[in-house]
Structure formats: structure tokens, C-alpha cells
């Protein structure tokens, strides 16, 4: 009962504080004048001006004249960055309540007996169809400086298609930058007595699905060419989803997994993007050779707080925990394309704290910023519209007082599609103060 009330309160609070005031009326033209502008794609402008019109960056530079009639934000003491982008999350997709939905009473599906049953496969799902503009985590993400997310359905083995979304919009459709970011896969067994029940079963299953998709495409093409006298191939939504994928996301946390997924991608000629990367500091060279980008989970491994304090840990595990945050620096040095994200349980602020650890472990700060802006945009093929402060790009901006990676830095505003959002930071600060 108590739980129900508090969650109700939380929802109404989010509605009151977050959504409505956040939607500032969008004037025709906005100019941020004489701010420090970190363009990412070019040099830092110490006194730069940015003109935003119709949701796009109309002009940026040091010698820009502010158009008459523009709303002007005086930029003294402010720094403008491209809006931050997480390279992998479920932000925007409503998460089921912990109390569980009505599905619990539904009978469990019969266990899969082979790849033909397409176990744990929902390759027909598209994040673009699942997101909601009122999803409760968007507010926290914006408040931390994020304007964009590569959002994916993540359940099952072949979970579904991600979308690049802006973290605000009047309708879900208006949030979508591209509905086709890639197909998300895991190596998680199907569960229960179902096939596949092991890691090697999962790999064999995915391999079979790729082979089936190739064969399906062949049959369809042949039928379309001359249908007369031929039995039509049955429509298969699981395979359609695989054939449509512009890239495949594959999990790879430790060195063995990274090498395994690179081999698998090479074998199947998959355009792969790996995610995880905690032991990438050992495999930067192999990643470089492969050409595959990797998404780094900045929720770095730490000892479980509830772990038995007397349990002896191996040197291998200790080395991993010590060195994981240095993976980013190693990848930057080797020239491997990488971007950051965080575990689903981590907050957007935690993601930035994780990136700060990567900086402390040797990653140059400008590379860290790039891995939160232009690099993910490049990895997902949207760098022509997102990821840097350039004329013509979507006006997704982050305005701060202070340097982005300092704990005390305040987010002043974010702009998403040219609309200004003020963070809910004062509320959070009060809560933090109260907690102390």
C-alpha cells in the first residue's frame, strides 16, 4: 500500500516538476552569445556565438551577428557542448514495474526445441515503436546533459531494433532521429528447459538464424522473379528483422568474449558493433585490426558490496577491476572507434562519473567528450546530423557552468531540437542536501 502511494507521488511529482515546465515555449530564433563553445568537430571557440533556428544550428562562430528578434542568452561564464549521447540504453522505453504486470498469470510458452522455434527472438520489435515521450527517465537524462540516446529493446537473444532518439519531443515520432540503429543481440540462454540453454547453443542459434535469413532471401528473390509454378516462401518476421539490420550489436565484456565476437562477426561477415568492453585494454590491437567499433560500459566492475569479505579473489579478477577504466585510453591510443554507455541500473550522472574514471585512467578529456557526442553519432551513421556543433546539424546542445566532467559543474540548459530545457537539478540538490 505504502509503495503504491509513494510511486503515485513520484509519478505526479515527475509530471509536475519535469514534463510541463520543461517544455519552454520555443521562440523562432535563439542565440547564445559569447560563450565558450566546444564544437568537438573543430577547435574550441573561446567567445563563440551559436544561432538556433527551427530546431537546427543556423550558424556558429566567433564573428556571428545575432539576428534581430532573436532571444539572446548571454554566454559569459557558460560553456556550450554538443548534447550528450549515450550509445546504448533503454531510455524512452517504459520499463515494467517491479511489482509485475498481468503477464505473470499467463501460461509459460512451451519450451523451444530447436532454432525453428525462434526462441527468445523478437527481431521484429523496433524501439521507435516502443518509446514514450513521458517516459520517466528522460527527465533525469536531460538534467545530466544528455539530449540523445541509442535506445534498444534488450530482452531475449535477438531483442530487436534500436533507434537514435532525442530525449524530448511532443510525440514519440518527433523524438526519433533514425528508427534503424541496429539489431541488439545478447548471449543469454533462453531459460528454463528451452533451446538454447548454453552460450554455445546461443551462438549456434544465431548462426543458424543468419543462415536461414540468407536462404529466405534467396527463396524470396527467386519467387519474386517468377512466381508462377512455385510454392511461395512463408513470411518469417524473425528473419525479416534480421535482414533489415544495418548493424548488429554483440555483447563482449572480457577479452575472450571480445575475441569470440570478432571471430563470429568475421565468419558471418556481420557489420558488428560490440558492447561491454571492460577488458578492451587487452584487446585494443585485435579490435583495431577488425575495424569493429566498441561501446564501453562505463559502469566499471567493482567488488560486490555484499560479497564475502573473506572470499579470496583471483589475480585475474583484481586486474580486471583495476584496469577496466583504462580501456578507453587504450582504445583511443589504438585508434579504435568507441563510445560510452552505462548499465541499465545506473543513472545518467553515474554514466558521467564512469567517464570521469576513464579520464582519470588516462583518457584525454577531449576524447572522452567525443565518445559521448560525435563518436556514437559516427558509429550509428548519424554524424551528418548529430554529434557536434556545426552549421546545419540538429540543435542538440548542452550549456554548463564549468567543465563537463567536474562533479560540481551545473547543467544550465539543454537544447533538444532547438527547444530549451532547464534541468531539475535544484530539486535533486535539495534532495541530496536533505539526505546528508
Amino acid at each position: 500500500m505504502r509503495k503504491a502511494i509513494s510511486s503515485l507521488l513520484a509519478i505526479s511529482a515527475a509530471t509536475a516538476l519535469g514534463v510541463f515546465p520543461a517544455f519552454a515555449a520555443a521562440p523562432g530564433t535563439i542565440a547564445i552569445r559569447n560563450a565558450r563553445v566546444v564544437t568537438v568537430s573543430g577547435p574550441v571557440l573561446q567567445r563563440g556565438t551559436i544561432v538556433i533556428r527551427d530546431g537546427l544550428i543556423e550558424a556558429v562562430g566567433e564573428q556571428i551577428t545575432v539576428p534581430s528578434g532573436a532571444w539572446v542568452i548571454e554566454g559569459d561564464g557558460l560553456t556550450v557542448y554538443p548534447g550528450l549521447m549515450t550509445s546504448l540504453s533503454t531510455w524512452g522505453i517504459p520499463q515494467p514495474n517491479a511489482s509485475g504486470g498481468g503477464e505473470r498469470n499467463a501460461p509459460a510458452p512451451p519450451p523451444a526445441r530447436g532454432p525453428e522455434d525462434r526462441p527468445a527472438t523478437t527481431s521484429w520489435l523496433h524501439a521507435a515503436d516502443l518509446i514514450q515521450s513521458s517516459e520517466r527517465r528522460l527527465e533525469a537524462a536531460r538534467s545530466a546533459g544528455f539530449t540523445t540516446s541509442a535506445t534498444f529493446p534488450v530482452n531475449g537473444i535477438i531483442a530487436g531494433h534500436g533507434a537514435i532518439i532525442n530525449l524530448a519531443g511532443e510525440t514519440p515520432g518527433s523524438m526519433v532521429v533514425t528508427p534503424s540503429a541496429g539489431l541488439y543481440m545478447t548471449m543469454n540462454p533462453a531459460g528454463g528447459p528451452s533451446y538454447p540453454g548454453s552460450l554455445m547453443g546461443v551462438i549456434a542459434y544465431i548462426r543458424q538464424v543468419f543462415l536461414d535469413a540468407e536462404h529466405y532471401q534467396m527463396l524470396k528473390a527467386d519467387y519474386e522473379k517468377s512466381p508462377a509454378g512455385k510454392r511461395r516462401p512463408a513470411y518469417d518476421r524473425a528473419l525479416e528483422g534480421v535482414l533489415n539490420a544495418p548493424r548488429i550489436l554483440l555483447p563482449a565484456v572480457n577479452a575472450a568474449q571480445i575475441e569470440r565476437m570478432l571471430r563470429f562477426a568475421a565468419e558471418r561477415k556481420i557489420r558488428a558493433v560490440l558492447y561491454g568492453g571492460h577488458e578492451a585494454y587487452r584487446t585494443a590491437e585485435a579490435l583495431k585490426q577488425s575495424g569493429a567499433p566498441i561501446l564501453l560500459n562505463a559502469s566499471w566492475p567493482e567488488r560486490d558490496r555484499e560479497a564475502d569479505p573473506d572470499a579470496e579473489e583471483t589475480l585475474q579478477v583484481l586486474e580486471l577491476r583495476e584496469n577496466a577504466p583504462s580501456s578507453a585510453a587504450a582504445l583511443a591510443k589504438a585508434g579504435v572507434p568507441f563510445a560510452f554507455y552505462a548499465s541499465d541500473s545506473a543513472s545518467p550522472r553515474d554514466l558521467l562519473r564512469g567517464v570521469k574514471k576513464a579520464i582519470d585512467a588516462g583518457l584525454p578529456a577531449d576524447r572522452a567528450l567525443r565518445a559521448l557526442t560525435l563518436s556514437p553519432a559516427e558509429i550509428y551513421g548519424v554524424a551528418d546530423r548529430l554529434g557536434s556543433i556545426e552549421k546545419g546539424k540538429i540543435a542538440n546542445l548542452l550549456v554548463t557552468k564549468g567543465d563537463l566532467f567536474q562533479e560540481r559543474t551545473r547543467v544550465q540548459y539543454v537544447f533538444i531540437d532547438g527547444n530549451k530545457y532547464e534541468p531539475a537539478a535544484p530539486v535533486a540538490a535539495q534532495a541530496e542536501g536533505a539526505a546528508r
Partner: protein
Amino acid sequence: MRFRISLLSLALCVAAPLAAAPPIVIRNANVLTVTKGSFQGSVVIQDGKIVEAGPNVLVPQGATVIDANGMYLMPGIIDCHSHIAIDAINESSVSVSSMVSIEDVLNPDAISIYRALAGGVTTANILHGSANAIGGKCSVIKMRWGKRASELLFQGAKPGIKFALGENPKRRGSAPPGVQGTPNLRYPATRMGVEDVIRQAFTEARIYQAEWREYYRKVEKNEQAIPPRRDLKLEPLVEVLEGKRLVHAHCYRADEILMLLRIADEYGFKIKTLQHVLEGYKVAKEIAAHGAGASTFSDWWSYKVEAYDAIPYNAAIMVRKGVLVSLNSDSAELMRHLNTEAAKTMKYGGLSETEALSLITINPAKQLEIDHLVGSIEPGKQADLVLYDKHPLSNYAKVQKVLIDGEIYFDRDKDLSERPAKEARKKMLLEREKQRQAEQAKNAPSGRQQ
């Protein structure tokens, strides 16, 4: 930007470090060649291979000389049945799991590789588990500790597959928690059912094989044809039918051993090895007649009902009846002292020293069809060697050095001397972890309020 991955570039960086190592001479050793007798002398290694072995050899210029000081040099031990260095063992959801592959789940960071090395093992047959009548594809690997997964693979080894009979494959599984009764559990539940599953699978494989033959026939005649759907479950079974993949069959009881040999004869394929085969002594003649090898334990049994009727003379009796016999570990622990397992066959069954050593070297090499490459100390073979301080069939023998492809992968002195530094490193890392946790506690609250 291009993300496509080139197999070639992966291969190139694998091959690069192998070039131009200086020759190695191990001299002043008691050399147990296994196939060509024993002698006091030297072994010369060049480019990863044994180039000369004998009492007197020519030492090549610039060679690294290892003085064995009268210690014992034998071929690297080959374990025909192991489950180390993999991130999954069983795909137990189905009774025929031939679509899965051990190669996909090799983990080169498994410490069991290094421990196996320290026990003199240089090569092992990494098998899928025994949960299925027909299990997954297996991989022969070398214990190249420190290398990548793809570099562990034994190049030139014939592919294999695991079969299993008896108690393990007939386990139906159990209902998931909270589910009443035993719905949708796995077939089979009896030994008869295991036989049926194998027959059914090979019947399907024959049909599949015929579909592809028909397709190739059409292609040859330039007729229009769409290839059949590739079926990863049936492909390896067709390879078995065509003699391209070796069958390693887990079994215990004499009756089911005969059952499997009959199926193989009926479908026209060979069982390459019977694994465990604790009742092999009862049907050794039949095993020899089929041409199957036997890979067994020295004296490990009674861990389940079907493993009770076992005797320590099993290996020796099968040897005397003309079966190609090896001793395997099936265990990361037993794997570290296969030499003493071999020695037991001298006490139980009276095998000679050479016969005993054969059980863990040249015989398993033959069973894996890699005996032209490894398994004995002969010029032309790969330099996979173990140096023991005492005779390897002695309880007191300790492994001093292990070479694979002429490269030292285990060195006891080095291991001992590196331990203090590793201890210190571990202590330092633990200390730093404590610091990190303390800092984190100080910087709390965490992101919950966000």
C-alpha cells in the same frame, strides 16, 4: 567508415610472432621417444619442429642450449577427454545438440590451461558434455597459455563430435520451479530411447545428404537450382557419415557399447573412440573388430550405477586384445598427473614402460588422428616436449619444463621465482580496491537521487 572485419587481418597478426626463433638444443637428457626407444642424448628443435634426436647430434649455430642434466624428456602428454578452457560444457535442452561447437566457447584465460601445462599436458581433446545422445562438436587444442582462443586450436586436427550413451543422455530434465508435473520434458528416458534418437538423427542426416547431392548434381548439369537450407544440426552428422568427423562416444556398459557399434556398422560410419568405456574389458574383441579406440580411466569408477562393474585391468586387457587404448582425465585435476595414471597400468595388467607411456602420448594422438604431427619424439614432428626431473612413471617426478612448438610455455623455476612478485601485485591491487571503495563511500550519495 567501414566496420567489416577481415579474417585475413586476424590471421596475419596471429602468424607474425612465430617467425625466426633461434634453434633449441636440449642435451644431456634421458630421451623417452615412446615410438623409437630411449637413449641418453639430445633433441634439436628448429622452427617449432624436432629436426634431430639421438645420442650425438650436430648443434646448429646460434642455438639456445638447455642442459637437461640427466633429466627425462618425453613427448607432451595428450589428453583425449577434457572439458577445460571453455565457457560452456553442455547444451542439454535437446537430445541432439550437434549444432553447437566447443570452438565457439574456448576461453584462453582459463587457469586450468596453465595447470594442465604444469602437469605435462600439451594437447587435449576438448569435448562437449555428455547430456545428449549426440552432443556438440569438439576441438583439439594445444595448451598455448597466453595466446588467443583461435591460437589454441590444433591446426590440422580432424574435427570431432561427442556422443553419449546411458544415464546422462536419458535424463529427461526436471520441471522448472513452480510447474506441476513433468511437462514437455526431453526425450529419451531410457537406453532404448537413446538408441532411437541416434538412429532417427542419422536417418534425417541421410535425407539431408541426399538433398545436397541432388542439388550438386543439378549444379553440375547447369540446371537451375536453389541450394537446400543449411542445417547446422545435420551438417556434422553428414560429415560423420562421410568419414570427415571423428565420433568420440561416452559410454560405460558393455551392452550399450555393442549397441552403438551395431548402429555405426548399419549406417556405415566408424566410432573413433569409446570414452570412459569402463566395461570395455568385457567386449574388447568386438571393439577391436570395429576398429574403435578406447579412452578410459586407470582406476576411477563407482560414481554412478552404470560405472560400478569396473576393474583397474581394463586398459591393459583392452591393449592385449588389440584395442588402441588411451588414458584420459575428464577432470582439470586428474589432468595434472596423467603420467601417474599411466604408471598404474604397469601394476594392474603388466604393461611395459613404453606401453604405459603410449597410453598418454602416441595412442591418444592416433585416436585424434594427429599422430603424424605429435605423440612421440621423432624428427619432423612438432616439438611438444616435457622435461621431468625423475622418470615420468615415478610418483616423485615433477615437471620442470614444457615446450609446445619449440616454445617454452611452462618453466618450474620461472614459476617459483615469479610468485613473490605476483603476491605483491595482488596485495597492492587489493589495497587499491579498498581505497576505491572508501572514496566511493565518501563521495556518496550515489546517483540514486538522479
